């Protein structure tokens, strides 16, 4: 029962937030955090569980958004556009995976970077379709199941619902046999082969799953902004998502979400007071990497365990069995 507490608290927080945060600006910020949080979570399937560093993850944001705009522009409805966009984007991910998985380590990183830049380049140059540097608009938010998500609180709830479903699926993935196999290919690829696991296929499927959830985040992105331009899918964006996952802790499920909270807040709130918010972000990153090299979530968990152990020792004696953290 005790393990049900954190998810229950999380859901309660998501539900109650609009009652506490009544200011539209901040509630919109919460929606943004959830969108980037999902993007970082999807990237972390590759990074944290598969040990593959990708620098092209913003590409899915772009493919989904532009496809949505194009399909709706051709006269189809929102539902068709969303379905086509997700399929096209995930399929692109499948092709990217085939290309990127020809290499590993640094080579993998460079290929994903190049693929991300290609998508960016197409968006930037293909003026007739993408509007080039000026970007392109999406007409209006859809009304899924007849419910309007046009205003800020209802869009927030829509985003929160999608986010919760995605988080649940990714959580299941990390605890599943496939998730265990994926971690196995990260730690001992050669041994995995000798145990009968198809390492390439496991990595590729993880790549496709990562692309799928990244695409879902992209769909939320275009619904939120109703606008897409090449700036949204630049290398800077891909790097920021990567930073979110690393900052929060790539080895944990919740780390990328924490990373998304911090980076999105710094970008949007602190930047109104401090001009050099990018430098501040850099400084925070350096400090975190120095003192908590595994990221904030594992770092604070470790700190908490140490403090808890210290507090307990005089009273009970050191008999607390260390629990294996996931």
């Amino acid at each position, binding site marked *: 029962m005790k393990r049900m507490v954190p998810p229950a608290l999380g859901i309660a927080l998501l539900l109650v937030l609009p009652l506490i945060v009544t200011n539209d600006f901040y509630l919109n910020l919460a929606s943004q955090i959830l969108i980037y949080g999902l993007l970082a979570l999807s990237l972390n399937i590759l990074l944290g569980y598969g040990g593959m560093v990708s620098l092209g993850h913003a590409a899915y944001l772009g493919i989904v958004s532009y496809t949505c705009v194009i399909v709706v522009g051709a006269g189809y409805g929102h539902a068709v556009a969303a379905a086509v966009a997700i399929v096209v984007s995930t399929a692109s991910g499948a092709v990217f995976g085939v290309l990127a998985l020809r290499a590993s380590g640094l080579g993998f990183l460079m290929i994903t970077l190049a693929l991300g830049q290609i998508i960016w380049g197409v968006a930037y140059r293909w003026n007739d379709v993408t509007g080039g540097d000026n970007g392109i608009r999406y007409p209006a938010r859809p009304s899924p199941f007849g419910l309007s998500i046009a205003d800020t609180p209802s869009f927030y709830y829509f985003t929160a619902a999608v986010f919760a479903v995605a988080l649940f699926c990714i959580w299941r993935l990390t605890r599943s*046999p496939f998730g265990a196999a994926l971690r196995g290919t990260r730690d001992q690829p050669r041994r995995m082969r000798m145990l009968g696991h198809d390492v390439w296929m496991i990595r590729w499927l993880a790549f496709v799953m990562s692309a799928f959830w990244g695409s879902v985040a992209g769909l939320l992105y275009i619904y939120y902004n109703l606008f897409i331009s090449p700036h949204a899918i630049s290398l800077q964006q891909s790097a920021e998502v990567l930073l979110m996952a690393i900052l929060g802790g790539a080895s944990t499920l919740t780390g990328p979400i924490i990373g998304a909270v911090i980076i999105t807040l710094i970008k949007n709130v602190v930047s109104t007071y401090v001009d050099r918010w990018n430098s501040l972000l850099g400084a925070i990153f350096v400090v975190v990497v120095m003192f908590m090299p595994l990221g904030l979530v594992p770092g604070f968990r470790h700190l908490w365990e140490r403090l808890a152990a210290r507090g307990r020792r005089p009273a009970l004696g050191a008999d607390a069995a260390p629990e294996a953290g996931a």
Partner: protein
Amino acid sequence: MTAPALQISALNKRFGGLPATKDVSLTVMPGERRLIIGPNGAGKTTLFNLVTGDLPPDSGSVRLFGQELIGVATPRRVALGLARTYQILTLFGRDTLIHNVVMALLGLSPLRWNPWVPLAGQRALYAAARDALARVGLAASAERVVAQTSYGERRRLELAMALAQQPKVLLLDEPLAGLSQEERQSVRGLLDSIPRDVTIVMIEHDMDTALAFAERITVLHYGQVIVEGTRAEVVADPRTREVYLGD
């Protein structure tokens, strides 16, 4: 006549200009215990790597019960009944012993593609893994993390993982290396308890154990088979003394 469990024919592998495996042919019959010996650098582990597919050979053939393995991906060879242990331990160090064995079992189960069901709920899998650990005397350590176990325990875990897969042909790369005298004794007993439907090819330097265990012995030297025969034949052969047993 039944097909040999493992039939290697005219196998060649060069690293740069250096031949690591040179025209090696050997035939291991089902149920046989074969020992491969030879000085360091004789190409014993390379031979295993060629059989498992860790390395592609330059030429030659490897057949498992008559089926050609060259060109077949490693996981597929495992599915055909091949298993091995490593000389250099390659375990999942941050995970528990039982998780390591579960990974071995998953390798042969279609369940490994499932991204939805919780792994921890797979009782049959964990029961089989517990059995495999019990077989090597590690039942009590199942929940310990590999990084916190002794070298001897890890060696036995390697064996448990290979045995859990119920292989037809088992390749053991120095299963006794680095073990204490008592640990050797227990691993030796363990090897003797493996049923005869498993064919075993073993690389080992501990001659007492190895000679007691094997029926036939192959001596490799500079990647070539120089002597092959029964225990008595190989020990009596002057070429064996020359390259391996010393003056």
